[in-house]
């Protein structure tokens, strides 16, 4: 399938225009702006989608409606709007807006960036669950997701924070919009893109079939922000509408490892070890941050080499050195300008200096993320029933579907024992529709 898509997108190949006919070569032109209406519609739809998502998640607690909303969001924000504007990419515009006073961030972009944040702060990650087109793609292809160990989940989850730091720095320095450049699904939305991007998207899609939402959990920089906000959201999702019977069903069906079981009583030795670990984590945290700050300084040259100005200067330098004999289009264009190479190298040198500082900041940020996580996993918070991890839960609603208590609430079953035995072992098939004699739903 991926091969077919690659073939379909192969028209990106460029070949010479006809040389024997009076072929009118199209003049490059700036695409028409959307005007005011479409952005307003976009914002309105986003608000509506977010509101519905929050409503479906917290009030209706309906997985089915959430799925329908997911499909609708994918159709509009994904395939119709072709993945742009999206709140994930908007992070970069905002970062650039802060860094460059001359850069005006469009209102739509600001709205797309802030609205999901606000909704998350109030209602949890309802945006991720059924509004984000990227999440929707992964949600739909999640056929049989495996459960990853929590230690792996927590470690890989940090990559998204580092990616966020790099994306912000790259955007702020106009190095490039990393998030957009490596958006794995945009090529599907647009039915376009280079082979590399298509392969990257196909890999992510294939992975999403067996690992739930890999992009959202381990890479999405915006998701990283939402994770933090989600943890402190005003309202939080409760898996059972009433008392949890600890049947373990929700934990097993959550493809994102976002439902944690109740904790057990800790032995004294383990408690001691835990305290010692926490103490050392707190002591080592500043050191880790400092070390990664230094690492960021060390990486600054590599980071700077991503910048187009530096890349061009490097290319020119390689050409001057004789390492490469072929000019690139950029270097040829630059040479045609007649600007001395030294000027380009001067500009590159400034960027190198800039990245020396930013590299340190990125390192410090990475160190902070790591140190925080070390401290976090060293802290033990007791749980007495199955709870959704507020930062990790994307409000997909799967757990509602399986929760016997929820089924009972909806009148689909009379008693939880129809689905689960007293010892917690489940049995039977899941009733998916309400019996004719079921009582009316009352409230969430």
């Amino acid at each position, binding site marked *: *399938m991926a*091969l*077919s*898509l690659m*073939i*379909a997108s192969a*028209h990106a190949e460029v*070949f010479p225009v*006809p040389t*024997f*006919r009076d072929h009118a070569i199209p003049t490059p032109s700036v695409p028409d702006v959307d005007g005011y209406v479409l952005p307003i519609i976009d914002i309105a739809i986003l608000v509506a989608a977010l509101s519905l998502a929050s409503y479906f998640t917290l009030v209706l607690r309906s997985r089915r409606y959430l*799925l329908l909303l997911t499909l609708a969001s994918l159709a509009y924000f994904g395939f119709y709007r072709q993945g742009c504007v999206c709140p994930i990419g908007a992070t970069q515009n905002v970062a650039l807006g802060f860094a460059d006073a001359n850069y005006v961030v469009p209102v739509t972009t600001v709205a797309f960036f802030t609205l999901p944040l606000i909704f998350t702060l109030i209602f949890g990650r309802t945006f991720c669950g059924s509004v984000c087109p990227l999440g929707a793609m992964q949600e*739909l*292809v999640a056929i049989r997701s495996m459960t990853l160990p*929590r*230690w792996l989940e*927590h*470690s*890989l989850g*940090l*990559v998204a924070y*580092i990616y966020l730091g790099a994306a912000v720095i790259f955007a702020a320095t106009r190095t490039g919009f990393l998030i957009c450049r490596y958006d794995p699904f945009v090529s599907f939305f647009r039915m376009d893109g280079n082979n590399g991007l298509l392969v990257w998207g196909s890999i992510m899609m294939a992975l999403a079939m067996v690992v739930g939402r890999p992009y959202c959990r381990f890479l999405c920089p915006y998701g990283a922000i939402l994770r933090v906000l989600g943890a402190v959201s005003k309202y939080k999702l409760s898996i059972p509408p009433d008392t949890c019977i600890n*049947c373990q*069903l929700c934990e*097993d069906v959550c493809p994102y490892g976002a439902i944690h*079981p109740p*904790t*057990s009583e*800790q032995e004294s030795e383990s408690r001691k070890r*835990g305290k010692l*670990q926490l103490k050392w984590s707190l002591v080592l945290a500043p050191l880790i941050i400092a070390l990664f700050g230094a*690492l960021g300084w060390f*990486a600054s*040259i*590599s980071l700077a*080499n991503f910048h187009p100005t530096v890349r061009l*200067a490097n290319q020119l*330098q*390689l050409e001057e*050195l*004789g*390492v490469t*004999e072929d000019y690139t289009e950029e270097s040829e264009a630059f040479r045609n300008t007649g600007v001395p*190479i*030294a000027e380009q*190298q001067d500009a*590159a*040198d400034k960027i190198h200096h800039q990245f020396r500082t930013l590299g340190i900041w990125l390192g410090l940020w*990475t160190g902070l993320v790591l140190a925080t996580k*070390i401290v976090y*996993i*060293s802290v*033990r918070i007791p749980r007495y029933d199955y709870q959704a991890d507020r930062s990790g839960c994307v409000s997909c609603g799967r757990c509602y*579907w*399986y929760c016997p208590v929820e089924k009972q609430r909806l009148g689909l079953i009379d008693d939880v024992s129809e*689905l689960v035995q007293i*010892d*917690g072992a489940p049995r039977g*098939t899941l009733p*998916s529709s309400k019996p004719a004699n079921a009582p009316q739903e009352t409230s969430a």
Partner: protein
Amino acid sequence: MRNKFFSYRAVLSAAIISGCFSLLVGSLIVIDFVNREADTPVDTPQYVALRQQWIDDPTNVALEEEIRDLDLKLRKKYFRNRDFSRRGAIIMLYGILATLLFGKWAADLKRLIPSPTVKPPGPDEDEKLSRHGLIALAALAAGIVLVVVVMRQKDERLLPTTLTHARSTTESESDLGTAAAIPSSRVVVDDIPAPEVYARSWPRFRGPDGSGRSIHRQIPTHWDLESGEHVLWRTDLDLLPGNGSPIVFGEQVFLSGADKASCEVYCFDLSTGQLVWRREVEGRPASGDVELFADTGFAASTQATDGRRVYSIFADGTLVAFDFEGVQVWLKSLGVPQNSYGHASSLAVDQGQLYVQWDQGDEDDDLSKLYCFDGPTGDLVWDTPRPVSKSWTTPLVVELDSRRQVICIADPWAIGYAVTDGAEIWRVRCMEGTDGGASPVYENGLVFAGNDGDDLIAFQPTGSGDITEEAVRWRTDWGIPNICSPLVFQEWLLLVDSFGMLTCYDKVAGGEALWEHDLGTEFSSSPSSAEGRVYLFGDGGQVVIGTPAAEGFEIVSEQDLGERCVASPAFQPGRIIVRGVDHLFCFGTETVDEAVNPDQAGDDSRGGGASVAMAAPLDVAPLPDLPPPETFQTNWPSFRGLEGNGISEADQVVDGWDTLDEALWKTVIDLPGANSPIVWDDRLFLTGADPDQPAVRSVFCLSSATGELLWKTSIPSSTGDQVVKTSEATGLAAPTMATDGRLAYAIFPNGDLVALTFDGHVRWQKTLGLPENHYGHASSLAIATNGVLVVQWDQGRAKDKLSKLVAFDGATGELKWEAARDVPESWCSPVIISDGEKMQVIAAGDPFVAGYDLENGDEIWRVDCLKNAEVGPTPVYNENELFVTNDGADLSCIRLGGLGDVTESNIVWSSDWGGFPDICSLLATPDFVLSLDSYGLLSCFDRREGGEPLWEEDFLTDFNASPILVGDRAYLLGMDGDLYVIKPEREKCVRVRTSKLNETCVASPAVSQNRLFIRTAKHLYSFGMKADKASSTQRHNSREPIPPGANHADQSLQAPPVAQPKSRFLASRLRSERGETSAAKISSDE
């Protein structure tokens, strides 16, 4: 019904159908793609073929239309295909979406409750997270560090640390102005030092010609590190490591060193050994993962210098030029080579161009290249791919087959490239399956190349294409080195393998090894020679100095460096510079013979003579125009006069003397020489050499009017003190010089060829290599009136194919052509004649005499008449007939004309009378041919009557000098110093007069301006009419002697009136040289 319609099975079937549909669509897209002819319309074979046709025939309108139609058709098809794919992809995506939806629906309809497993007792999930999470986070942190390190390694800063350098480089390049705009094919050569200065330095691996042979003298044979005896200095190399050998130019010694992090270049003072400057290469791109052998290191290649800049190359492909002040001039990166031992080929420099042998990967990888850079700017002049695998050998630059070539060897080819454009000239299969480490050497027409694992071959690098079959002279599989390069020493080829076995071969004959000598230690350093000794530096610091001979290797001394040494030494006058791993040593003596002192490097009168071709002219005043051809006839510009027939146009030459007081003058010549004097106007030239001091020969210039020594220029020998095989009679100054009125040319028995201005400065100098000649080279030079200088370079056996005729542009020394000759060694001289149409060079040798076109060296005709003869007498041309003979062969009279082998048709007559000479050349008068053998028997043959012998006259003394003819009188000069003037008549030999010099005479007399010049063992005599008589001839011999240093222009003003040629054949020759047609000749004759 509704439930049935949306039953699990129906929904699942819908999912499967939509899945299959998607798969089908996807497959169709792929099949369609596979069946496409090309990726784009313009890649379609049919289109490409038509375009090519149109390029070949751009005026074909019909074809143009056909292409237009096809282009349109193909583009339509392309966009149809594209639309097909695009639509297919959309349909497929919808299909996939439907599959997913139906699949989910189906799953929803038959959703099973998960069956959670009972959690085992023990630590809960949070505790596991707490424990394992730490390890996972540590792994993540390590991964981040690893990624950063890898990124950093791959993305090393490309720009210089400070941009000052980059700007200065750019500015300096822009300062070059026109140089920057010069097309890459043209080489910008700035003021690089004169070739002979270069030849006296040690500017690259194994010396100026890469042979490892030094021309310098007073090289120490022993030293004592403890007492400091002969240790001029010893400098700690507390620097970056390196295995490159030292190179020396002027007062600078250069080394390089590097590690993975940085590359450095060092300059030391030759006098004191102090580090003058140390520079790190700036702006070097990231080295990445350089694959190398620890023993090779990052700075294994030896640098090279053109005398203005020092060039260095490092294992990561960094190529850098520093000037002598330590300023980085330019920097290139060739990329990290695929070379398992690391790059170790050294650099070669020639006439301002830098050559980099960049061999890597395997033979089929197409990665190997030979680069040529312009030294001053670093611009790529050309590069050429090499069909070889990785190697560690160093290129040679030699002049062969009329052009300069770069010779590179590697598995599996030795290839010669033209220096002008890198075009391959020839290739010879060698070194197959080996790790080529030993560099080639070139000596006298033979290249020696080989490496352990395959044979070492000696081959003649002439011809084109794959010349393996015909070029290889000999090969051996014994004693082949894999690191140390061969050394040609006198007539032997010496090989040192890594285990210290020194093996000796006859360099020409090859065959079995003559001897082996176990040096008792391992070797990486290549052998060198100086002052007739071989210097061998073992890995452990042991130094063996010895003298090879036919019987074996005689050790002169054994020394010790006290530390490991893998680099090859550099030589300078009285000094040897050696790089150990810890120290840079300079052994020698403070007192150095000025003749080879580097301080004298700028004195071009002491031109060096290494066997590098040194054709570039010195920076001296422009030469005046060539004198008119007529003036050649009035002078005596070469052996036996202009056409080499010994016939003088003078008419008032004395026929002898009673006492030596009658000599016009007599000048002592303090160096012996068998060559005859040549005369141009007031200047008389000859050469001399002391047999006990073979390192230096001299060219004398005397006033022909007064005998005053105007100047004497010493010419250092390219072979140093090496003994050159000569006979006692020929000596080290046997060949006679030649002059074109602007420059005087001299050749010596060791192959050194030099051009001097009339005020004694070396104009250019080169060497033809040491000849394979039992008596040493004795053939004299021939000069044409158009300034072309011809050398008859016959040597070895005929089957050796070493003999050739070589023509140079006299003014510049540039090679004009070479003509191979299937003859063995000979000692006769070429003569240049005109047959009325064109100028020919006539050269004799066993078994034929042949005429060659002076323009291009093409053989015009040949006559087989000299079989089984080691030809000594020079052919004599007179009045369209050629006379050749030799002891053991007939005397033949040959009519000029025809093409190819004219043996059958052009021999007018031949005589087997016997007693023909083996040294003295013939004399042809209009009626007779005179033959004088070495024992004094003069035979006279009737020229007009089929060579009938007429009479014999025995002078009862030995003769080496060839007779000359003045008017109707022949001048015969015996070895005992008696001059016999005879008048040959049909019936008898009339002895006109006999005069005595009482000195040994082997040189032929010269006649010019009615004066007779005779060289004896110690003197030069001039005999002639007294001044009052001579003045009536309107010659200029009465004018004042020209003081030393007077320029040629002044002489031209005083040149004598041009005499009209008396010979009608000479007249035709002069017309030919003026470019007049044969019609004009007929008219003139009429």
